[in-house]
């Protein structure tokens, strides 16, 4: 049963008390969204986009023009621009904020679900906006919605500048809109398709190409604000000059032209039976097993329906199911969750402290400590803001068990011994955390006794099959 603390969270740290009622412990974390635990600087999304991102965006062209004759100078010019806008620092700061919720907050279960939703509404990596804004988007758009309705979460994500940009909705222009009068312009269906396929009803709902096209029409006009001096770093707006006039029909229901159309469609999408089934499947897959059963999903679907998609109720249902099936299924943990569980149990000095992170000044070159979280997660093959596709990182075991990815776990368990505290470097410490986190401590302790040195115990423990799963 003790693996439940890792299944829905990150385990019980050496200085934490073992909760007497595990289920109540988990359920109590889901009603409120407390302030972030990180004590250091937390930049606003507005600052990230309208100061740093904007500078990067606006000056990029100047650098290209200035150094067009020399590829080496061009590289130096871009490196300097990166430095001036903190590109190499922000992802590590965001990871520090994120990881502190898992390691030190009073609501690790909420943190694990926050990671789930951030991945459900993944932002494709690589664009200038993603470099600056994916972290703030997850903090400011997704996390505050964890005690709101799924409908509100979907709406806020859909009109967020992160998603509008990631799925090209600025290029989604009504062919009969005012802006298309003198210039041939048409729709881009990306965002509409993913809103159906990945965010709400899934292909199981059997939407047609015509549904996608019609939804794209509904979504025309929602775009990144633009000005000559700020480029596309202005806030998202609904610009009716780009909106396709006339009625639209999605899943057989007709929607009026205008700004409100999107909210009305989303209301219907989140109330579609396939949406409930899809969300229940994904939650079970994340927490319990690659192949969720109908029985498993049923209570979550019911909670979704009964509560009108109120996320705390959906989460509680999912946690109850995870508890019920705890002994029957052990879920292979993805690299980031595995790493955080190791960091928590072994009491690593992780992430880099707020004091050190706050020593960084924009424009200066970040020190290695300021970049370590990014390097660490990239090295593990699971940098959470680095999704290649809008479907995010996989929750299937097979996608995380290639030779190189398993090698990373072996090497990280060894190399991160450096992050342990010297007072903990004794077998007693490891025995203690095993007792707190495993139901059969004797067996695991016997296995650990094969280690000659403390760091060897660490390698063995965190690559034990029972630890790789939860």
């Amino acid at each position, binding site marked *: 049963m003790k693996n439940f603390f890792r299944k829905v969270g990150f385990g019980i740290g050496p200085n934490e008390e073992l909760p007497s009622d595990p289920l109540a412990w988990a359920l109590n974390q889901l009603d409120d969204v407390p302030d972030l635990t990180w004590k250091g600087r937390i930049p606003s999304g507005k600052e990230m986009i309208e100061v740093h991102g904007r500078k990067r965006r606006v000056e990029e062209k100047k650098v290209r023009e200035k150094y067009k004759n020399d*590829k080496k100078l061009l590289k130096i010019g871009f490196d300097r621009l990166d430095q001036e806008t903190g590109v190499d620092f922000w992802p590590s700061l965001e990871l520090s904020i994120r990881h502190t919720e898992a390691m030190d907050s009073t609501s690790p279960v909420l943190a694990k679900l926050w990671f789930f939703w951030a991945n459900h509404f993944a932002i494709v990596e*690589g664009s200038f906006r993603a470099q600056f804004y994916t972290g703030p988007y997850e903090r400011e758009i997704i996390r505050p919605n964890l005690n709101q309705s799924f409908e509100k979460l979907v709406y806020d994500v859909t009109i967020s500048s992160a998603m509008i940009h990631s799925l090209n909705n600025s290029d989604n222009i009504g062919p009969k809109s005012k802006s298309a009068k003198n210039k041939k312009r048409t729709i881009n269906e990306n965002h509409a398709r993913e809103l159906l396929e990945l965010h709400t009803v899934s292909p199981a709902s059997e939407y047609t190409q015509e549904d996608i096209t019609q939804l794209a029409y509904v979504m025309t006009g929602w775009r990144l604000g633009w000005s000559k001096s700020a480029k596309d770093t202005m806030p998202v707006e609904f610009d009716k000059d780009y909106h396709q006039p006339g009625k639209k029909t999605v899943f057989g229901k007709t929607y009026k032209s205008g700004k409100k159309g999107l909210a009305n469609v989303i209301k219907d999408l989140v109330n579609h039976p396939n949406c409930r089934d899809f969300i229940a499947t994904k939650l079970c897959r994340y927490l319990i097993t690659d192949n969720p059963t109908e029985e498993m999903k049923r209570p979550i679907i019911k909670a979704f329906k009964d509560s009108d998609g109120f996320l705390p109720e959906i989460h509680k249902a999912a946690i109850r199911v995870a508890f019920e099936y705890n002994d029957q299924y052990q879920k292979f943990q993805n690299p980031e969750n595995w790493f955080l569980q190791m960091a928590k149990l072994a009491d690593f000095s992780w992430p880099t402290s707020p004091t050190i992170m706050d020593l960084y000044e924009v424009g200066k070159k970040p020190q290695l400590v300021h970049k370590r979280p990014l390097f660490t997660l990239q090295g593990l093959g699971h940098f959470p803001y680095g999704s290649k596709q*809008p479907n995010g990182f996989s929750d299937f075991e*097979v996608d995380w068990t*290639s030779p*190189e990815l398993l090698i990373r776990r072996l090497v990280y368990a060894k190399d991160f011994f450096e992050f342990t505290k010297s007072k903990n470097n004794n077998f007693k410490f490891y025995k203690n955390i095993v007792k707190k986190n495993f139901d059969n401590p004797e067996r695991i302790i016997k296995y650990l006794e094969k280690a000659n040195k403390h760091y060897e115990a660490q390698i*063995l423990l965190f690559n034990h099959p029972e630890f790789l799963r939860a």
Partner: protein
Amino acid sequence: MKINRRDFLKTTAATSLFFAGFGLPSFASQNKKNLVVIMLEGGMDGLCAVPIRGDKNFKKLRSEINLKKTLKLTSDFDLHPALENFKTLWDQNTASVFHATSIPYTGRSHFEGQDMMMSGGRVPYQENTGWLGRGMKLAGLKGNGLAMSLPMPLLIRGVPLNNNYFPINSSLPQKRLLNIIAEEFDQYSEKDLSETLSIIRNRDLNYFPGTNASTLALEAGKLLSDPNGPRVAVFKVDKFDTHAAQGGENGAHADCLKEYDQILKALKASLGSTFKDTLILTLTEFGRTVKQNGGKGTEHGYGTAVLMAGGLIKKSEVHGDWPGLKKKDLFEGRDLNSTMDARSIYASAMSTVFDLDFKRIQKDVFFGDKLENLSGKLFRA
């Protein structure tokens, strides 16, 4: 490197297919054939790699990034001087070019384009598997894919148990510890983890050759030349997105082409006699504008070239139906047009290397899309 799992898998795959009643290509009587795909990310400029000869208009449009020195391929086409190993292979009839081709994507976004070049679909982000993965699955090639990267690229997803190689600059735990972990995996009946760990235990645990392209290619060549080793390898070369300082012989695009050329050189050396049974193809999301931009670079375009090398090349030739570079011939008045769906080349390559019926590939891998069987034209059976 000994990989027991593959032997095991090949047997099981063969057995299950045998009992399923499918015909299985016989490997016993012929050499194992390999397919290597090198992804050129950022948009490779086919007009820079393989420029047209004697087109005055082209020279004018690219007055500041023209190549002053080139290698000659045919009476109509030159080769970028950075591709010297490609030229050596060309002279030996083991390299060729398909020009004015592209995947069916005209949107000019890297992210969408890279997704589609790997998925082989017509709509961005719609597929969760890659065309190469689906092709391998169709051929029953489980456990035969090798990605020279840490994440498993979409391109070879869709078939189980792919291997990857991307060494970490740190030593692995001692063998003694790996053995203890392996015993525990067995005790817990973790079959898949156990098999992967056995691959890991057979690696040189303290050997870090680096992760630059040619080093990875040397390792890949070694593995591919093993009769029981993988049959497919996937590489990535990036930074082809040269909006500025693209340059001529020594510009930013030249650096990227050189990296590709070094991979070729390393593969040729490490594949040894296996080179004759190998096909090495490039893949990119789009070509680049014909006209240079204000930054002495080029913008995202459409048509490009696919570079092909290896002993399974029929003969050195620049294939394709040249659409011309007059304004009216260009795609949307700005890009080299594509006169061949590049997926025809990839489908034909898989048909040749995996001994699969072209029509089955077309149907099961490329969604029944209209593609042309070029196997006989481009490759040796």
